[in-house]
């Protein structure tokens, strides 16, 4: 393949001639058509185009004002403690896009009241029909979004079905909607969606992170044994997010995984616990042959802050990888003044990177200022005693 700025290719030359010629011919033809053939009508045409453009501006302005007024009206009715009336109003609406915007703009307590009223009005089944049967993409998306808001368990099948759509927008809306359901099946469907739906797995995991469905740990335990490293990777992340002690055993298992990315995510997640089992699993990864696993492990140990952890972290200040050294410095900073004796000792370390990093942390911990203050206090005391 040629380098940039190299010789001009033959087809490039041909294009260079044909391209401007084609456009000039087209433009001349257009000019002739407009100035000769349509000359009499042209001023009217121009005026009509400009008027249409101005009308578009005014329509935009009117739309914004109308939407704001409508929202204010509904908010006023909600303030008057009439969510059922508002919900009835909303339930009668077929304009689901507008409905979404209205609901999104409501405060949390009003949203809950409107949700209950929408459920009572039987909105969920109408939405499910539209989510499955509507041929137009954005209408399906709107319906799925509202299904996630209403979260009627009877409509879960429709949302799970929609996650199988080839259309990324529909699948995305369905995955988002699943996070709204307080149902173990919804969470399991989210996990199944990792790597299957036409969305980045990070997006699906982020949506699953928000789910408050019951039985999440059980579903995640099952996924921790998956053959797919991607599934195990995101399972480790989600186990860390759930925050239950029941997540620790599977995380410890994943911290010894064959895949380095899974190990890194598992130790990072374990940083949220300071129990002996979790700390031992993190410490075991400080010697991992893969540098980014060490980097995550040392950071996790800094977050867990177990007793004696600083002693384990200090040797990583001389790690060959910059990121590991940097994370080790950050982890020691987490320990605060408790790490000062170790850091002072590291100032004498034969490794210059370790000395530098220790000095950086000491500066951040205001060690120099403290030393100066101590020296001044000592001198003052001595002077007073004399």
């Amino acid at each position, binding site marked *: *393949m040629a380098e*940039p*700025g*190299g010789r*001009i*290719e033959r*087809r*490039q*030359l041909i*294009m*260079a001639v044909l*391209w*401007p010629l084609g*456009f*000039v011919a*087209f*433009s*001349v033809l*257009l*000019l002739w058509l*407009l*100035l000769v053939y349509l*000359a009499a009508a*042209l*001023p009217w045409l*121009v005026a009509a*185009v*400009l008027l249409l*453009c*101005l009308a*578009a*501006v*005014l*329509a*935009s*302005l009117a*739309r*914004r004002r109308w939407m704001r007024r409508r929202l204010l009206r509904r908010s006023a009715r909600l303030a008057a403690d009439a969510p059922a009336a508002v919900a009835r109003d909303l339930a009668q609406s077929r304009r689901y896009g507008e409905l*979404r915007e209205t609901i*999104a703009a409501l405060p949390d307590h009003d949203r809950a009241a409107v949700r209950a009223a929408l459920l009572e009005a039987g909105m969920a089944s109408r939405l499910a029909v539209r989510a499955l049967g509507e041929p137009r993409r*954005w209408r399906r*998306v709107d319906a799925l979004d509202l299904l996630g808001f209403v979260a009627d368990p009877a409509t879960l099948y429709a949302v799970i079905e929609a996650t199988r759509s080839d259309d990324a*927008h529909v699948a*995305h*809306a369905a995955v*988002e909607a699943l996070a709204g359901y307080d149902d173990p099946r919804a969470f399991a469907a989210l996990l199944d969606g990792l790597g299957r739906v036409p969305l*980045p797995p*990070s*997006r699906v*995991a*982020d949506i699953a*992170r*928000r789910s408050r469905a019951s039985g999440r740990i059980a579903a995640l335990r099952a996924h921790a044994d998956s053959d797919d490293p991607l599934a195990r990777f995101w399972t480790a*992340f989600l186990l860390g*997010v759930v925050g239950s002690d029941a997540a620790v055993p599977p995380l410890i298992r994943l911290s010894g995984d064959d895949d380095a990315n899974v190990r890194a995510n598992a130790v990072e997640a374990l940083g949220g616990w300071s129990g002996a089992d979790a700390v031992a699993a993190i410490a075991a990864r400080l010697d991992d042959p893969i540098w980014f696993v060490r980097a995550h492990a040392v950071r996790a140990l800094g977050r867990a802050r177990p007793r004696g952890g600083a002693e384990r972290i200090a040797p990583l200040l001389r790690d060959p990888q910059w990121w590991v050294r940097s994370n080790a410095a950050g982890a020691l900073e987490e320990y605060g003044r408790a790490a000062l004796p170790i850091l002072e000792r590291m100032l004498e370390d034969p490794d210059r*990177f370790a000395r*530098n990093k220790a*000095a*950086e942390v000491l*500066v951040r911990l205001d060690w120099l200022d403290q030393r100066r203050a101590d020296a001044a206090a000592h001198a003052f005391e001595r002077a007073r005693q004399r």
Partner: protein
Amino acid sequence: MTVQGVIAAIYVVLLAHFLTVQLIYFLLLLTSLAGAARRWRESRETDLDRLAESSLTMPVSVIVPAWNEEAGVVHTVQSVLRSRHPQFEVLVVDDGSTDATVRRLVDAFDLTSDEAFYPEPLETEPVEQVLRSRVDARLRVLRKRNGGKADAVNAGVNIARYRWLALTDADCVFHPEALLRVCRAIGRDPEHVVAAGGQLRLLNGMRVRDGEIVEMRQPRSLVARFQVVEYLGAFIGNRIGWSVLNGVPVLSGGFSAWRRDVVLELDGFTEETTHEDIEMTLRIHEAMRRRREPYRIVSLPDPIVWTEGPERWRDLYMQRKRWQRVVFECVWRFRRMLFNPRYGVVGTMTMPHLLLYEALGPFLELAAWGLTIWLAIAGLLDWSLLGLFLLLLVALNAATRILSLATDAWHYGAYPPRALITLPLLALLEYPIYRPTILAARVVAFLEFLTGRRTWERVQRSERATA
């Protein structure tokens, strides 16, 4: 064919060129309208509140190169630090300022020396000091020897911790959701998007307090008001259209986001052109298309950053000379892509557009006006036809601008209602009043390009904008 016939033919071709330019812009606008509507719908799929509290939202290093920017740098940093984003850092790179840029930063953010060692994958002028803020740990300031804007950006790239870099200027004010909006767009296709930009709006006239826009107002000066119209047309009516075609010619230096590994792979930003943003955009296009790697450079319809524009005709003239010079430089530098189908949309559309309409356009325009005057003096002009033609030209230009304004008002409503009345009027006057200055700057820029003259005249900063 007589001489008169030849001149008439040339004249028709020149007029046709005018029409083609406007037509292309109008077609780009239509593409933009579709792109903006689609992006707006897509943006509703991901709630920014959720992104703001998610640990999976991609972290960003914001790089702010500054050279003698004492007037606005504190406001800029304040506005960036005010961003809603779960994990970002701000790296101000002082490129050897001779004014009080650093002192103002030290006073405002309580900076202290940070004796850290950093890897330096890109070669730059030596970094003399790294400072970090005691007030906000996310802020670091690099002091380095003067080496130009690209060199300062490269120093920031070296020290940046995160995979995504956001570049902005030290006279810009961030929208609080700027970073989130860009991350949302990148997150839709994280494997392929390598760079992203957003809408730049004019800061002139706005009331800014502690880095936050507290009142949206129109600029007072006519020059700045024309620029409001022009920016709307350029960003909404033009860039989004190019983004839909994946042929964005430039991501503005006012705000752009780049993947760090791609920037490093291409040896960073270069000082060899007047502006580094258009050069890097085209370099990424060239590298990716040459290697046949799937990629996307996206331009968002969301308002992202407000920047200060020139308030005086002379400053505008100077600025546009610079902008035009870099077009010549880049067309010459990337001539291998011109009309080359191997480079897809960029080779067959973006680059020819840059050459024929952006680089050579002003000369054709000048020739057309010259011939018009000559024909008028010779008494050979059909005034009614010329009148119709000019009417068509002004109307097409105004329609492009007004529809851009309508698009903005429909989706975002960034301007107050009064502006929606005055800006369309200015769009009608843009062609006869504003364009001659731009035309003069663009023609002079070509002469400077030929003579190899490269200067960076500073634009006088408005105190009112940051009052």
